[in-house]
């Protein structure tokens, strides 16, 4: 404890007896260090220091920031901000506050400058040195372009992903539809076979499609690529006819495999058997075999 004077001790005793001091160790509080704020001195200094220049020399303005139009529209006008308290931590708000302050200044100052005939717009043919070099401005432009391109790319990628997802969805739906149709057909057929329904309308919708497809399929598989393939194999394949080989030799002359008697004698007639029965129902044995295969 610091050295206590007698009078102070007596005071403490009195206070304790009156009940002002609590029992226990009482530590005398240090007065917090007062910061110097010589208001009179400041005002005097300002008065001495002030230069009463015309506004045109100083070009200074003191103003509140311009009203935030967007915030007003959206209805998020912050009461705090209008009174002047800015949240320094919220970067965007803070910068917007500074921006609006500058805007308000500009809006106020431009008419004043016009009156004093000080130009604010530089004419197009006035070439002068700028604070930032042209090279630097090119770099800035490049960076902005890069940013924009990056954004565009990401947008494209997003769209593509969405499309793919959508496409996948559609594909899945189509497959499911087909499967459902097949299932329905099968159940209908089974029902008929078991004798639950004796209507054959389910066949109509399907039979044509089925038959047509199978018939055409078998035809295609027989003639289509096979004949072409055969010819090509013959011409170019291994063991096929090559360039400089002889023709009209004894063997080829004696070969009568390509001879069709009916065609030669004009009795075959042209092939117009397509108008026959389309839905030629296969025989019992064939039907049984088909069923078994399935």
């Amino acid at each position, binding site marked *: 404890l610091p050295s206590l004077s007698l009078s102070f001790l007596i005071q403490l005793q009195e206070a304790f007896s009156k009940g002002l001091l609590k029992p226990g160790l009482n530590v005398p509080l240090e007065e917090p260090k007062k910061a110097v704020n010589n*208001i009179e001195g400041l005002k005097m200094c300002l008065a001495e220091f002030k230069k009463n220049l015309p506004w045109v020399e100083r070009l200074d303005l003191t103003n509140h920031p311009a009203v935030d139009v967007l915030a007003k529209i959206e209805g998020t006008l912050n009461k705090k901000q209008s009174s002047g308290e800015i949240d320094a931590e919220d970067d965007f708000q*803070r910068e917007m506050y500074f921006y609006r302050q500058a805007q308000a200044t500009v809006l106020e100052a431009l008419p004043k400058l016009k009156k004093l005939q000080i130009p604010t717009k530089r004419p197009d043919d006035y070439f*002068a040195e700028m604070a930032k070099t042209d090279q630097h401005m090119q770099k800035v432009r490049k960076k902005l372009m890069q940013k924009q391109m990056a954004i565009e790319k990401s947008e494209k990628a997003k769209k593509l992903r969405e499309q793919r997802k959508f496409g996948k969805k559609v594909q899945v739906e189509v497959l499911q539809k087909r499967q459902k149709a097949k299932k329905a057909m099968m159940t209908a057929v089974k029902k008929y076979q078991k004798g639950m329904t004796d209507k054959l309308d389910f066949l109509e919708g399907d039979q044509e499609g089925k038959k047509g497809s199978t018939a055409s399929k078998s035809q295609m598989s027989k003639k289509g690529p096979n004949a072409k393939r055969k010819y090509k194999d013959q011409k170019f394949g291994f063991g096929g006819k090559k360039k400089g080989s002889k023709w009209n030799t004894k063997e080829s002359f004696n070969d009568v495999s390509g001879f069709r008697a009916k065609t030669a004698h004009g009795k075959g007639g042209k092939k117009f058997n397509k108008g026959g029965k389309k839905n030629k129902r296969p025989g019992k044995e064939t039907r049984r075999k088909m069923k078994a295969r399935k």
Partner: protein
Amino acid sequence: LGKSQCRAAVTRVEIDVFFNFHVLFVFQGKWKNKERVLVFSSRGINFRTRHLMQDLKTMMPHSKADTKMDRKDKLFVVNEVCEIKNCNKCIFFEAKKNMDLYMWVSNVPHGPSAKFLVQNVHTLAELKMTGNCLKGSRPLLSFDPKFDKEPHYALLKELFTQTFSTPQYHPKSQPFVDHVLTFTIADKRIWFRNYQIIEEDASLVEIGPRFVLNLIKIFQGSFGGPTLYENPHFQSPNMCRRLMRMEKAARQKERQMVKEIRLEKRKEVKEVLTEDVTDDVFVTPAEEKPKEVEHEAPRPSKSKKKKKLKLTELKKRTLLKRKGLR
């Protein structure tokens, strides 16, 4: 972004145009407001501060540069330097510990001076600030209304106005007003921004530089004299760092204490709350062994290295196989 082109070879026609415009606008009046600002620094500044100084010199055509001052000299030497250069304002940057940057703004012969701590410095060269302005064009100054409310802020406002505003008809200045400097008070600090005026409807783009000033003290004299104002909210960077370190240390100490307490708790004899009668049923003390006194020293144990060599059968076999002995 720059309608203007900076031409390397200026043709005769352009000289005429330039001259005419200059004559029209600049030489129309005499330069009366003789303000000159000396911008320089002490030793030990880093690249960012150097660029900031350069930027300020670019922005202010009424500025002059000087060589770095040795830190051994006292601060009032700055006044003499300013006198030699015939300047009546001074912006002096002081760097300490390679980390902290202090800025003095002063009216040199008799007037007031202020010391600030500079934070959040961004220079002109940053690519995010896309604006541009004429070199040496006169700025508009924009102040927060809070500057008028307190006497110390009012004094600072006057100081900034006189220092940063370019005098009219200064020979190095450009006659157009195309950018605005803003000083705002937020979070008990002064924020500085520089915007380019693009259109008449007040659409702006930031040019830079930008920094934050934390007021420390205002003196009545230039770089000295009685203190007029001391910022009670200012905490020196050393103090900030010290507080952080102490906080860390306190946390560590607390953790240590908690650990120790836990250990102590485990070691102490625990009070038996309920006596169980059947507790000592299985307690059978061992027979007493005869005391054996060893007369000879014990044999030294095999070294640990040899213990490792105890291979299992499988390993032995593989080793031999590899060696080709099997």
